[in-house]
């Protein structure tokens, strides 16, 4: 039986970062969601923001079926190889919602996302959250946090970065951080994000392009 998620609202749809991403995207935009999972974010944007075009890329076959049942058009494949096939500037936004840390070549994927999308929205779990620091530094264990919920042996994450790492990376690669949001245990954080945030969400664009 194909698992068709007829259930209306999964808890995922109220994920806090959805609200932040939702606010960043303008009405009638075109959106490419890299690693769109069950398609909840795209379905939400499609419904409320009346996207002119939306497209997902997803590696999991079962998730593809759930996307299709929500009316999402989705391409089965991995982000690393699926992205180069899109034309330059073909989407207003490219979204990497907690998938960035799972791709083989994050550097290339960011550059490609900035090429394909006019803007890129990227979110990732913060490896330098105080709880992760404590688990690693004091207890000597691979950290498990709310945003890094996996055991070392079953995690899909292959890159571990902190918010500070990402900011440094953007500076080095001449990527412009237009907006940044940090989510902690109880909503948004403004103070000491690299220590207190579980998740960083960035709206970025290519610095070179914006200078033109």
């Amino acid at each position, binding site marked *: *039986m*194909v698992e*068709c998620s*007829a259930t*209306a*609202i999964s808890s995922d*749809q*109220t994920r806090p970062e959805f609200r932040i991403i939702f606010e960043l995207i303008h009405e009638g935009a075109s959106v490419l969601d890299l690693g769109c999972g069950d398609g909840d974010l795209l*379905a*939400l944007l499609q*419904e*409320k923001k009346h996207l002119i*075009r939306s*497209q997902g890329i997803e590696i999991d*076959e079962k998730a*593809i*079926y759930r996307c*299709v*049942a*929500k*009316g999402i*058009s*989705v*391409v*089965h*494949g991995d982000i690393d190889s699926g992205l180069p*096939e*899109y*034309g330059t500037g*073909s989407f207003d936004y490219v979204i990497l919602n907690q998938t960035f840390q799972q791709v083989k070549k994050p550097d290339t994927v960011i550059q490609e996302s900035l090429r394909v999308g006019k803007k890129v929205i990227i979110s990732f779990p913060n490896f330098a959250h105080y709880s992760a620091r404590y688990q690693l530094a004091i207890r000597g264990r691979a950290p498990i946090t709310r945003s890094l919920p996996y055991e070392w042996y079953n995690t899909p994450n292959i890159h571990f970065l902190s918010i500070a790492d990402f900011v440094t990376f953007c500076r080095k690669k001449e990527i412009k951080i237009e907006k940044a949001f940090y989510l902690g245990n109880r909503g948004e954080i403004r103070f000491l994000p690299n220590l207190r945030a579980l998740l960083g969400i960035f709206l970025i664009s290519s610095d070179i392009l914006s200078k033109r």
Partner: protein
Amino acid sequence: MKTAIENRGIGIVETRYYTFAQPPDEMVLENGEKLGPVTLAYETYGELNADKSNAILILHALTGDAHVAGFRKGDKNPGWWDNMVGPGKAFDTDKYFVICSNIIGGCKGSTGPSSINPATSKPYGLDFPLITIGDMVKAQLQLIKHLGIQKLLSVAGGSMGGMQVLEWMFAYPDNIKSAIPISTAMRHSPQQIAFNEVGRQAIMADPNWQNGNYYGSRVPARGLAVARMVGHITYMSDKSMEAKFGRRVKGERQDFKFTPDFEVEGYLHYRGKSFVDRFDANSYLYITKAMDNYDASRDRNPGEILKGKDLKVLVIAYKSDWLYPPYQTQEIARLCKQAGLDVTYCEIESNYGHDAFLVEVEEQTHLVKYFLERVQHGRVLSNRNIL
């Protein structure tokens, strides 16, 4: 076993025929030759709505026919895609007007090498012109117009049916709202051509073939059966053959040293033999040649054609299909992506090889059902309560 009627199938259906291109207004083929009159066998299911916007054309594979679903009077078995076409099924005949057309070059009621050549009053044989996938689709366009349809809601098909879908996309993109190419290719690889050539050589090596002039006498049954046996091997997979036959042997051994002892051998013999009763050897030559010669990007740039078109595309591949491997279907999805089309691509897990598109109904139904709903209504209808 449930009958199709209990299963709310289509029930009794009838094949119809449309003849056009009467001389001197013959159909001009891709190679410049003329063919006429041309008859196409077709079947329809469901009702065409008032604004004629719910028609779906289904395109069959190499040895298929217009009889896609339901039972013809006296038939024991339903049409070749009965599990996909019918009330409540993927191609839901309660909602859509489904048309399935046979192809020119075939032998299932449409004009082909076994038809009577009006110039000689004898079967065409090898006087039949070399037809192409483009010609098949060009003829179908005539049928669609005859049925009063300007724009099809969708065109769908697997294997060679998928090639016809591609041809619709690139030759008549304004006549379709969506396309569903399944387990197919923009062009045959050398491996695909090679298998077809073995089949053709088997037919032509049969002494009964007589340069194609065997009508009215003995048919090249051995050759055609061997061609079909080769075909069947390529439609299955290592895993599906292992599951179906293993190394099991049939009953008692016989005196002759080279009897088909293994079950797989017996199966291929049976398949080959039964094929001879229902298919014409010359048609097999013409159609396989049309497939081998097909190149979706011949004399044209498919990407440029698709750019800016309001066309939704669902591309389906099967992981274990080694005859039309997923990399070939990916090329189609890639093309649609680059052209900015609304495209969905899914590679379905299956052990059935190329046959999967005829067998793996459940996943395929899910994909097709929701896709068509979105094409027809602009969204999935089920009232989803979001946020």
